[in-house]
């Protein structure tokens, strides 16, 4: 057999006896073998790898900058499955296809590539690219990961198949077979051209034999492998790369201390920053620095490197390049916070189960007092409140708890709890200091800033960053992490719910929520809280209505009385509304006149029946005479200059009921109900009827405000386009405007007419409430009470993600890292797709969290590197900028070359880092300081001098990797053969030794 056999044999000797993996398959059956070969040929054909290969000479560094692709297929030898894969550098099409100037007997591209020196030691590439410098190759390997071709005979059989397939097809792309266990990365292969062939062979050993540890020994084996008959041989060209690893720098630099959380809680209430998320790594996110010192173009004889002496001093190497090794998943604070909070989503327990019922229910009243800790701060108390300090409150509460249970059983430390409650409900503190009534939250009056960042909540479906909900999310996140995990969460939530109920019962608005109906762009929990606030507002308004109205109340429905039946006007006439302001006072008299009736008859319209019935029975026009005598009620203001069609009185816009605020789940329910009615005429009718409550209420208000009115009047206000006016000429020949209802309004007994006939003249304040605030508030409170910690975590996860993104953004601006900017953009667009849908999949949420964590890790790495390279300390502006650029490259590129190698600014810092680490390992004296070393380096000047004092400690550790590439072009096998490229790559590391040879031979004249 060929030389390969010998090499393989070596390798086999080195490996321990291993079980044959595919004993069952009989590889020797001729037909199976032939079938295998033809399948290989078929695939090569399909991939168009047949015939002369072409391409332009490789550009320098193109293996790193270019794009690599691969194509795979599966073939089998009997029932043993192989994958066959084509790996290739993507090249411009013109070179691939343009076969114009092909020289028939040119060397295959791959053979030319063996000699190319412009892409040695690519930072990241397939190992065969690194070993052989190939731009394109095909690999046949066992398909299953733990399958392997082990026996020598089988290896040879495969190799022969390859050889035959190449020969039959004329394919010039090298074809490899992977043998032995996959982790050994053993390949043998072949490349064929016109009258030429290259054999790819390999040796892989656990330990390097002594004679191969240096250049001279490797040159010997290379020459003997070539076995070239020429004497003397032309000089061998050599490329060398030594890699040094720096590991021990943590000792000098600890990226960041974990924040001292206890200090946060300890002191003043104001000092606590519960609304902030922590950030940064708890361990060094950069684990190693690899320095590669490269001699790219050496010629045999120029340098000496043997077992006793070496010229290879890394300081002298013409090229330096550096890569960093990142710690896998360094522990980072923000990531930990998120991960822990996300874990809450999977907890099954209810709040009661976690806290144990006894704490809050069994023990009855006294304990309930404590859970209302905050209520004491806000409730009007007979004792002047300013005399009570928070700590007083807390202490007495603590004592009470102690009576019932051991103090440590309380899931949340009462001080922490109080601090959080004051953070969430700052109005309680206002009250504490003023002794006056809590104001309805300060932020309510401030219009939200319109910044893009602020509006992130609508993309995340979270809540505004100054809202109660958002703050609650951050508090729960912190409690979950630092204060008792799920127990603490359950406890705070319970307190929160108690506080919500208290506010409802005591009529205190909840702070930190925007006015008005629930904001459907926010998370459901936020909407629920807003809903509760709507209820409180309306209840407040009702209760205040009971007190005598004072004249200074603004009639325009400012925020303080939004709970009242509220101003609504036809939008078309908004402008007139403004103009009429002056007259408004008048209508308000009628409002306050009958104030008492407002509450007497809230949900009782019985007594009005007699009043409205006769009105309804008579048609739209006739009934007006009698009702005209009724006293008008509930007028808001006149509607422009419009007058009623019949009595000629001004047409008044009535005070109407505000429509019911809705949360998205209620809306969903409602639209489902409406949709279920189906699309039949009946269904449509029912649907309209169900929604006509508001129409009816408005009609009643309108009738009350405009005695003697008719449907036409109502329509002119409510749906003006359904009142059609035309100029006509009357009997006397005058042009007059004549109006009538639109055709669709005139349809007999259509729902508008029906409703009009049913409507009684009742002002809004005496109507049945369209919105039952008591019922809705109780629904919300119940909803809140049954939320488990897991539900809560799911509700609030968008807020926590939102906060985390803002935190990453904030930290990024300090560092200015392009890749993090990109990730942030991705996170935002990813999140806005995932979070806006109900019940996002856990997998997708995990992905978002992982993205945030990766952004945090990148920033932490940047900070670690900046500290290591002393960028902050660097006082020369230009040098500082260079260093910064260098550090950024380190973060983003697999490998960065050091300008000026060991003599440039970055190079000398790296040198120092190594020297320090060496000192550290030699003398276990940990006090060795940077400064003294600096001076020493300055003094010692050139490295030559240093070499002289080398007696003590070497600047660099022994290289962790030695790579050599030897190349030559010589005729083989005979002196008269064609001169062909020969190449051998060798690498020595701690764990293994590998030789990868490519030896070409002329096949024509042999």
């Amino acid at each position, binding site marked *: 057999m060929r030389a390969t056999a010998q090499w393989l044999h070596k390798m086999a000797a080195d490996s321990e006896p291993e079980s044959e993996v595919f004993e069952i398959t009989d590889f020797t059956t001729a037909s199976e073998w032939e079938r295998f070969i033809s399948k290989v040929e078929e695939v090569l054909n399909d991939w168009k790898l047949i015939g002369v290969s072409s391409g332009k000479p490789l550009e320098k560094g193109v293996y790193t900058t270019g794009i690599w692709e691969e194509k795979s297929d599966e073939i089998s030898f009997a029932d043993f499955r192989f994958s066959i894969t084509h790996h290739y550098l993507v090249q411009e099409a013109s070179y691939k296809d343009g076969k114009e100037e092909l020289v028939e007997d040119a060397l295959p591209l791959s053979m030319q590539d063996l000699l190319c020196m412009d892409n040695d030691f690519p930072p*990241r590439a397939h190992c065969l690219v690194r070993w052989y410098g190939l731009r394109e190759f095909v690999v046949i390997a066992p398909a299953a990961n733990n399958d392997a071709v082990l026996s020598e005979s089988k290896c040879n059989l495969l190799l022969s198949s390859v050889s035959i397939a190449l020969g039959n097809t004329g394919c010039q792309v090298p074809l490899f077979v992977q043998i032995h266990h996959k982790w050994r990365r053993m390949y043998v292969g072949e490349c064929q051209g016109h009258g030429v062939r290259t054999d790819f062979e390999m040796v892989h050993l656990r330990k390097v034999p002594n004679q191969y540890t240096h250049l001279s020994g490797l040159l010997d084996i290379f020459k003997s492998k070539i076995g070239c008959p020429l004497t003397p041989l032309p000089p061998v060209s050599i490329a060398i790369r030594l890699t040094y690893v720096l590991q021990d720098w943590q000792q000098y630099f600890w990226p960041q201390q974990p924040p001292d959380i206890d200090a946060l809680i300890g002191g003043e209430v104001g000092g606590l920053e519960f609304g902030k998320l922590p950030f940064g790594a708890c361990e060094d996110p950069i684990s190693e620095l690899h320095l590669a010192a490269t001699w790219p173009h050496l010629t045999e004889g120029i340098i000496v490197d043997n077992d006793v002496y070496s010229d290879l001093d890394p300081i002298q190497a013409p090229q330096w390049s550096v890569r960093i090794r990142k710690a896998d998943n360094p522990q980072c604070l923000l990531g930990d916070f998120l991960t822990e909070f996300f874990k809450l989503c999977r907890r099954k327990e209810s709040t009661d189960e976690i806290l144990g019922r006894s704490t809050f229910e069994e023990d009855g009243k006294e304990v309930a007092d404590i859970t209302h800790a905050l209520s004491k701060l806000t409730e009007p108390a007979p004792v002047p409140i300013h005399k009570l300090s928070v700590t007083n409150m807390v202490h007495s509460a603590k004592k009470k708890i102690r009576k019932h249970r051991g103090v440590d059983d309380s899931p949340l430390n009462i001080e922490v709890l109080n601090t959080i409650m004051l953070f969430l409900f700052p109005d309680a503190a206002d009250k504490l200091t003023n002794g006056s009534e809590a104001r309805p939250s300060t932020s309510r009056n401030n219009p939200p800033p319109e910044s893009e960042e602020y509006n992130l909540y609508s993309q995340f479906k979270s809540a505004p960053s100054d809202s109660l909900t958002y703050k609650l999310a951050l508090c729960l996140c912190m409690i979950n992490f630092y204060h008792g995990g799920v127990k603490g969460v359950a406890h705070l939530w319970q307190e929160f719910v108690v506080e919500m109920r208290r506010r409802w019962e005591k009529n205190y608005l909840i702070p930190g929520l925007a006015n008005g109906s629930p904001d459907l762009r926010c998370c459901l929990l936020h909407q629920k809280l807003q809903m509760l606030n709507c209820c409180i507002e309306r209840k407040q308004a009702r209760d205040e209505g009971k007190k005598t109205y004072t004249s200074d109340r603004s009639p325009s429905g400012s925020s303080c009385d939004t709970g009242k039946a509220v101003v609504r006007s036809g939008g078309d006439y908004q402008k007139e509304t403004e103009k009429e302001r002056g007259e408004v006072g008048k209508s308000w008299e009628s409002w306050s006149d009958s104030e008492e009736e407002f509450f007497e008859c809230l949900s009782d319209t019985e007594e009005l029946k007699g009043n409205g019935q006769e009105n309804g029975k008579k048609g739209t026009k006739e009934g007006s005479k009698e009702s005209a005598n009724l006293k008008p009620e509930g007028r808001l203001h006149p509607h422009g200059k419009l007058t009623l069609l019949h009595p000629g009185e001004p047409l008044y816009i009535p005070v109407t009921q505000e429509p019911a605020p809705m949360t998205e789940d209620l809306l969903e329910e409602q639209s489902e109900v409406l949709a279920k009615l189906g699309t039949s005429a009946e269904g449509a009718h029912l649907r309209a009827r169900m929604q006509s409550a508001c129409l009816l209420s408005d009609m009643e208000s309108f009738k009350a405000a405009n005695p003697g009115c008719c449907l036409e009047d109502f329509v002119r206000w409510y749906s003006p386009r359904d009142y059609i006016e035309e100029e006509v000429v009357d009997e006397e020949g005058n042009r007059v405007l004549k109006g009538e209802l639109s055709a669709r309004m005139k349809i007999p007994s259509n729902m508008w007419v029906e409703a009009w006939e049913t409507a009684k003249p009742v002002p809004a304040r005496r109507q049945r409430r369209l919105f039952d605030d008591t019922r809705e508030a109780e629904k919300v409170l119940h909803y809140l009470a049954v939320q488990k910690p897991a539900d809560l975590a799911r509700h609030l996860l968008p807020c926590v993600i939102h906060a985390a993104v803002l935190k990453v953004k904030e930290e990024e601006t300090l560092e200015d890292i392009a890749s993090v900017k990109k990730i942030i953009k*991705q996170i935002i667009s990813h999140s806005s797709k995932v979070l806006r849908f109900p019940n996002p999949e856990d997998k997708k949420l995990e992905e978002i969290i992982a993205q945030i964590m990766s952004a945090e890790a990148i920033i932490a790495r940047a900070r670690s590197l900046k500290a290591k390279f002393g960028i902050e300390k660097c006082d020369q502006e230009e040098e500082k900028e260079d260093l910064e650029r260098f550090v950024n490259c380190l973060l983003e590129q697999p490998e960065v070359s050091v300008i000026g190698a060991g003599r440039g600014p970055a190079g000398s810092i790296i040198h120092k880092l190594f020297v320090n680490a060496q000192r550290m390992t030699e003398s276990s004296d940990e006090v060795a300081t940077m400064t003294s070393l600096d001076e020493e380096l300055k003094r010692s000047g050139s490295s030559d001098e240093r070499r002289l004092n080398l007696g003590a400690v070497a600047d660099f550790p022994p290289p962790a990797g030695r790579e050599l590439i030897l190349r030559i072009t010589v005729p083989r096998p005979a002196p008269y053969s064609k001169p062909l490229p020969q190449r051998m790559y060798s690498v020595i590391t701690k764990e293994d030794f590998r030789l990868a040879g490519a030896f070409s031979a002329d096949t024509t004249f042999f």
Partner: protein
Amino acid sequence: MDEDILTTLKILIIGESGVGKSSLLLRFTDDTFDPELAATIGVDFKVKTISVDGNKAKLAIWDTAGQERFRTLTPSYYRGAQGVILVYDVTRRDTFLKLDNWLNELETYCTRNDIVKMLVGNKIDKENRAVDRNEGLKFARKHSMLFIEASAKTCDGVQCAFEELVEKIIQTPGLWESESQNRGVKLSNQEEGYGGRACGGYCSML
């Protein structure tokens, strides 16, 4: 029967009252025109399955009343809609001038920013046109909407309006399929390049 339905799409019809929203919908679903159609109260709802490019889509179409007072009810129906048809009456300029308000409302309540919008100028069968076709076209272009003129009465453009809207929705990635939520999103370690390949052949030296 439901098996070959690709997706269910939620579509909303909005615009001032009386512009012909309900009539357009009725024309589309039942291919009739009913001059006696009652004014909508609140929202109404119809379903129709159509086939676009060989894909069957079930449309759940919500028709809204245009009156100011009913608008407080409708924002909920904006939620989750994939497409919206905004209608004005080519014979009533005021309904055209109100379009900006409707777009604002849409922006406020719609939960997604990639919703597909179609502008329809209705009642082109009538003689007293008050809005030129070019004006509608210009408005639509300014707000990246599809545009068509139609008549619920004569059937002009109605089918086409709905079909184009659906086609556009189906072509918009991420708007209708749930799996596509993830499309185009690359995960954190994308910069690792070859690192994670199964082959094991890719390596840095050490």
